[in-house]
């Protein structure tokens, strides 16, 4: 008698669980298009087989995408409303600010468009990953991805304990654009055991900082972007002798910290390596004296 009751209870519980879980599965989008470099990467990491049908062309650019090779497996789009519409997606995922005209047009055509905000710190990155999992109907995959990320982060921390002296770094990109305290880059260089000079300068948000003030801030390290093909004055600024004298170094491959994805672990590792080189060089110089 009791066994029967148990079986009935279990069956009901199972049924209830399936009814709760089922709408999420049934409602999961089947044809998802991503139009933004950062959403591309999160979608590729989380989407189920054949769920994602197109990523942006930038996803294949090894300079900015940490998943350029994987992206070769998906057809690319250029963010044009026409091409996106013809793909007949049931969900378009894009960045908050990217291609606003395309977003508006797709909305008018009745296509669901979701916008992922830019991650300005690790917590926002985590919530972005959960959000992506929710949109794709794959929250378990998102949780697993986050768990792996936290484990990697712990490993990295164990490998590189908190240094006594934190060198002071400036993140100085093309056109003299300096990353402020309110940026993912800031979180990453602090994880790597460096201090962001923007904090001393009181720069909350990323902004242009002229060459003179950069030099006067006396950074130990100026972390610059990698260069694109072709040429620009914006990037040539990094070759200015004043920047060189201030301690310029292209320490990180941009693909690893352009977007808030778990690949930022790699950026932190590269930054930490740059920090160790700097500290060692200093110790040698001190010993020399």
């Amino acid at each position: 008698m009791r066994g029967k009751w148990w079986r009935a209870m279990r069956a009901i519980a199972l049924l209830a669980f399936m009814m709760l879980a089922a709408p999420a599965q049934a409602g999961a989008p089947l044809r998802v298009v991503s139009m933004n470099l950062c959403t591309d990467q999160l979608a590729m990491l989380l989407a189920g087989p054949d769920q994602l049908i197109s990523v942006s062309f930038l996803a294949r650019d090894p300079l900015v995408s940490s998943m350029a090779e994987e992206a070769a497996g998906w057809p690319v789009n250029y963010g044009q409303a026409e091409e996106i519409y013809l793909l007949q997606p049931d969900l378009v995922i894009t960045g908050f600010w990217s291609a606003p005209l395309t977003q508006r047009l797709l909305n008018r055509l009745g296509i669901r468009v979701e916008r992922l905000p830019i991650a300005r710190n690790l917590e926002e990155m985590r919530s972005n990953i959960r959000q992506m999992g929710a949109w794709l109907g794959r929250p378990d995959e998102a949780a697993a991805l986050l768990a792996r990320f936290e484990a990697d982060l712990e490993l990295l921390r164990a490998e590189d304990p908190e240094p006594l002296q934190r060198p002071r770094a400036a993140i100085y990109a093309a056109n003299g654009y300096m990353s402020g305290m309110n940026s993912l880059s800031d979180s990453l260089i602090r994880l790597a055991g460096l201090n962001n000079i923007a904090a001393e300068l009181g720069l909350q948000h990323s902004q242009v900082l002229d060459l003179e003030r950069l030099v006067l801030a006396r950074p130990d390290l100026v972390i610059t972007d990698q260069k694109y093909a072709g040429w620009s004055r914006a990037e040539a600024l990094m070759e200015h002798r004043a920047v060189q004298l201030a301690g310029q170094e292209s320490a990180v491959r941009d693909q690893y910290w352009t977007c808030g994805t778990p690949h930022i672990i790699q950026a932190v590792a590269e930054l930490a390596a740059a920090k160790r080189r700097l500290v060692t060089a200093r110790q040698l110089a001190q010993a020399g004296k």
Partner: protein
Amino acid sequence: MSYRLLITLLAFLAIGLALITLLIGPAGISPATSIASLLIGDRTDIFAIVMREIRLPRMLGGLVVGISLGVAGAAMQGYLRNPLAEPGLLGVSGSAALGAVLVLQSGLAGMFGLALPMAAIGGALLAAIVMLLVSGRSRSSLALILAGVALSALAGAVTSLVLNLSPNPFAASEIMFWMMGSLANISFDQLGLALPFMVAGWLLLFAARRSLDALSLGEDAAAGLGVNLRQLRLLVILGCAASIGAVTAIAGVVGFAGLVVPHLLRRLVGGEPGRLLLASALGGACLILATDIAVRLVAPDRDLKLGVVMAMIGAPLFLHLVWQTGRQEA
């Protein structure tokens, strides 16, 4: 005013403006510290880096860009006997910018540094030759200017096309630099590349000063005075191409300076084209330095382009000159 007095005054003005530009900057270093660090700061002095690597090259850049634009404008006006002639309006600067953009975007300038000034000079040279051919066919000074407008438009369009097609995401937003010119963040490395060519251009143009005086009497009279017209043409073309090409390679197209400066100084030197060369060189330096001070005071953080201010001064003057020329030709 005597010629010697005028030259002395212009030279002092240029030096004074150059000193002022050294004292202006977003870092807000006091004048005394600035000068002390510039002169006697050692390698650990952080102000010395700012003064020597950022402000000094910008000051020298303003000086040599101004000299080049002034002297080339005066030489063109003297040789073509046309007060509307000017490297920017005749498309010489625009073609130089196209040459520079081509070698920069193709990566040639990265492999071989001198490719940059040389390509810009090549572009300037081509434009100067085209302008000379046009001026040989038509006596009308307005025809020459219209041909220059066409050439500028073409060079500007192709420059924009190249920058738009560049794989570099920042290139297209720099069309404005190439069209309007700026001295922001100029470094000694860039100056070092361009300066030898500029100086060579100045020397070629100054070598032409007596012939230009004779030419003001007309071609036949000049030939009668023993002026070798073919040699004069070569001096002016090569001199203008070298100085304007080198300027444009490092500072972009700065229009109207070559028009305004000779116009302001012509009467003060008694209308002699030869004397106008040196006066315009110094006057050009004063104008560009003053403009660079102005753009930095108006918008310290914005890199306001030199050409914006120059066009505000130069365009009304140009209209005025066209008005006068039109009346004469009618």
